[in-house]
């Protein structure tokens, strides 16, 4: 059935859709090399890198922006 007016009352419910299945390449972040500049956190279109620099692979689409923007190349894109 459809909610009245097709309103969605559960905020953030797209979390049910695990877009991690979209990717071909997976970012691997090396915390030793990481200088915690927050570039990857800022630039991820999914917002799936948290302040501890853990990547949520349920949602990562493998776009590669994080690896591209890391100033110390701490992130490598690996074929899954």
């Amino acid at each position: 059935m459809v909610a009245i007016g097709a309103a969605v009352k559960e905020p953030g419910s797209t979390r049910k859709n695990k877009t991690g299945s979209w990717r071909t390449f997976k970012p691997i972040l090396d915390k030793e090399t990481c200088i915690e500049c927050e570039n990857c956190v800022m630039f991820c279109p999914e917002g799936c890198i948290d302040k501890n620099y853990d990547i949520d692979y349920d949602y990562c689409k493998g776009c590669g922006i994080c690896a591209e923007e890391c100033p110390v190349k701490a992130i490598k894109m690996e074929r899954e």
Partner: protein
Amino acid sequence: MVLKVMSSNQAIAEAVKLVKPKVIPVYPITPQTTISEYLAKYVADGDIKAEYIRVESEHSAISACLGASGTGVRVFTATSSQGLALMHEIIFAAAGLRAPIVMADANRALSAPLSIWNDQQDSISERDSGWMQIYAENGQEALDSVLMSYKVSENKEVLLPTMVCIDGFILTHTVDPVDVPEQEEIDKFLPDYNPEHAYLDPERPMSIGTFTDPDYYMEARHDMEVAMEKAKTVISDVSQEFAETFGRKYEFIEKYRSEDADTILIAMGSICSTIKDVIDELREGGEKVGLVRVRVFRPFPVEEIYEAIKGASHVGVIDKNFSFSIGGVLHNNIKSMMDVNAAGFIVGLGGRDIKPSHIKEIVEKTKNPSNKPLWIGLKEEQ
């Protein structure tokens, strides 16, 4: 009860004052303009405590109504003809988003050719939108219908918007004696609007206006049809409650001397006042003729109309609109929904005057019906 003489436009503005909307986005258009002006003055004088948005078009007027209604407040706007046509896209959205907006439409012909005068094509052309539609015969009914419509629209089983239609110039720019109810009585009849379904509040975030794929759309639309059906019961209940408090009873239809009539005319709006006069005159002459005035056009009161006309030998339906190839819309709605052989007449387009003689002509032609819709009052080619 103190009767004041005022135009239907002013009567509607008085009703809006009583319902206490919080946001009024409105754009002027002849012949609704004085509604927007009365409301502006009420707001400027503090008689209505609302945000009056001087929008830059009717499309923005209805859009702002929808935004404000979505935020959870009572709203009002008014328009006519070209303005209503410009709103068309959002009119459908408002019903689909289940916003209990109430709007006044001053019925006016649609361009082209450009005309500022009355016919009902504008609101008739929005009949598929999901809005409830009421056609008022006079200023008192316009005022009372606005008051009742908020209660019906805001009912949580309904949540569909309503347009209250009044004939442009004929009602908007002529005066009637009108009883304006007391604020305290209206406050009891129509309490503050407390939205229960979708509204924007950071305490309870929700998304309104999502997009649906084929798995969901059809059910959403069917739910609206169910709500429109429910609206019939709610309209009856609200009318009953209104009658008990204010002493004026409104139904889906109004029967005028139709109980024992051989010939019944069916029409909507102010033309019915002319028809009633002609009926009285014909009755004096011994003719058993009557009128069924359709007041609520959507939801379409099939049973009520059929009950009222089934005993008549002849039925004639008068439309101030037409649909190409098939004739007047009210005529076609009646023919398609009930087993009745009704004649159809198209009158009064673009403000063409309808005289008692035209009504008499219609009564005669109803007794000898043609199987094609007849245009009455059309000038003959020389």
